[in-house]
């Protein structure tokens, strides 16, 4: 759980940073503010948290290297490959930002490539769960939920991080994402549940688990998502072109970040707990 969430957060931060913040700076050939340099460092720390967990998972680092042996067939092997590629590129581009903050344009291609690798990583990560033996995971809903988690966590973090230094338009854009993504998540819930109802006995048992044993967690997650939407609206209407008034944005941005973390952690907890293997053997 920690690995998937931290990696999706990391990719979301890097991608939205590239699109919303770095792109305008690169166009104007401006020097990168120190505050912005810290953003990639946070994404790198999140990815390294994933490294620690992934290395511990197979016992020791040597074992982790063995997992690259079945790239032809295993999505887990592919995940490790893309994970190493993404983390390596992120490490390099973060170092370049600190060393050459004025030459953003010269290494922006590497950041773009890191983003692309990150997007593939999130897809590959979702394919690990796309197993016929686990009906509740075996659908397009798995990659959708992973990508939504990626965009939501990235946008909440970036809005909080660039309160005083971001442009008015980028803040507005991030606030729109903070509203739109939980709306999509909430709207997808009944679609997913009705799909599960039609996907066989094991999938129906997953619905039953969610609506009985894990009902409090299910509602808590829904509550957090609705609160994130509400704080997203609050943030959106707090954004002003006047920089002096931007302090108003801090409270809704912080609250949106907190409720987003709560929603994603519970969502991922339920993702793992709802599983009923096919045949229930």
């Amino acid at each position, binding site marked *: 759980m920690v690995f998937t969430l931290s990696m999706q957060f990391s990719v979301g931060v890097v991608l939205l940073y590239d699109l919303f913040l770095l792109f305008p700076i690169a166009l104007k050939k401006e020097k990168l503010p120190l505050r912005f340099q810290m953003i990639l460092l946070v994404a790198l720390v999140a990815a390294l948290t994933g490294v620690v967990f992934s290395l511990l998972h197979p*016992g020791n680092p040597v074992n982790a290297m063995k997992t690259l042996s*079945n790239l032809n067939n295993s999505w887990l092997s592919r995940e490790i490959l893309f994970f190493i590629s993404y983390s390596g590129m992120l490490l390099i581009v973060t170092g370049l930002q600190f060393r050459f903050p004025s030459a953003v344009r010269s290494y922006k291609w590497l950041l773009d490539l890191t983003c692309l690798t990150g997007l593939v990583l999130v897809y590959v990560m979702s394919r690990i769960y796309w197993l016929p033996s686990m009906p509740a995971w075996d659908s397009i809903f798995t990659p959708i939920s992973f990508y939504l988690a990626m965009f939501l966590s990235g946008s909440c973090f970036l809005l909080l991080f660039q309160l005083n230094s971001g442009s008015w338009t980028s803040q507005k854009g991030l606030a729109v994402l903070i509203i739109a993504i939980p709306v999509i998540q909430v709207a997808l819930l009944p679609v997913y549940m009705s799909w599960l109802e039609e996907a066989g*006995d094991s999938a129906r048992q997953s619905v039953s688990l969610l609506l009985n044993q894990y009902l409090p967690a299910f509602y808590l997650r829904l509550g957090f998502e609705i609160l994130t939407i509400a704080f997203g609206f609050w943030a959106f209407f707090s954004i002003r072109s006047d920089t002096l008034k931007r302090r108003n944005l801090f409270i809704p941005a912080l609250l949106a970040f907190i409720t987003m973390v709560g929603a994603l952690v519970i969502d991922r907890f339920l993702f793992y707990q709802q599983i009923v293997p096919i*045949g*229930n053997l």
Partner: protein
Amino acid sequence: MSTFGFYFDSSACSGCKTCQVACKDKNDLQAGIRFRRVYEVAGANWNKTDEGAWEHDIVAYNLSIACNHCENPSCVKACPTTAMHSELDGIIQIDPKKCVGCRYCQWACPYGSPQYNRQKGIMQKCDFCRDYILDGKQPVCVTSCPMRALEFGPISQLIEKYGDNRSVFPLPDPSITKPALFIKPHPGAARASELGGSIINREEVKDEQ
């Protein structure tokens, strides 16, 4: 493609679990690890007769399941280290030197066959008692069955003798992995699903690792 397979006569199985115990003994398995598991399946309804009385409609039978050495093994595809591999004779085996115990094969297998050995930090599973086969003997679960409900042999012979039925409630759709398991279902098995049948000894067979 697997050249060997199991035949299981669910109508003959009494659920004594001798196969399960013999397998544990032969492979010296620690508590909680079962290469072979005997599932007790049961379902029932109460029906009102025309005279107004209530009568039950019970179906109960057993399924003895181990690794089915599938023709399309999802565990082999999933394994990131190639520790889970198919031998030339079609037997799916685990190389303990390569296995890192990530348990992904356990997720991928629809029969719950690979079992995690927490002490060794690796996966283990049935290998058809390969050492016995090489000695010209039968797997221990087959020879120990007092009801002769289990049989082992080349797939072609088993199909010729018993037909090609590989499905019974609640086993997964055999088209997913094409298991080398041929089944004579219990006469009541066809009704088990509509009676809301389920595995009733879940605590006994669940993976405790």
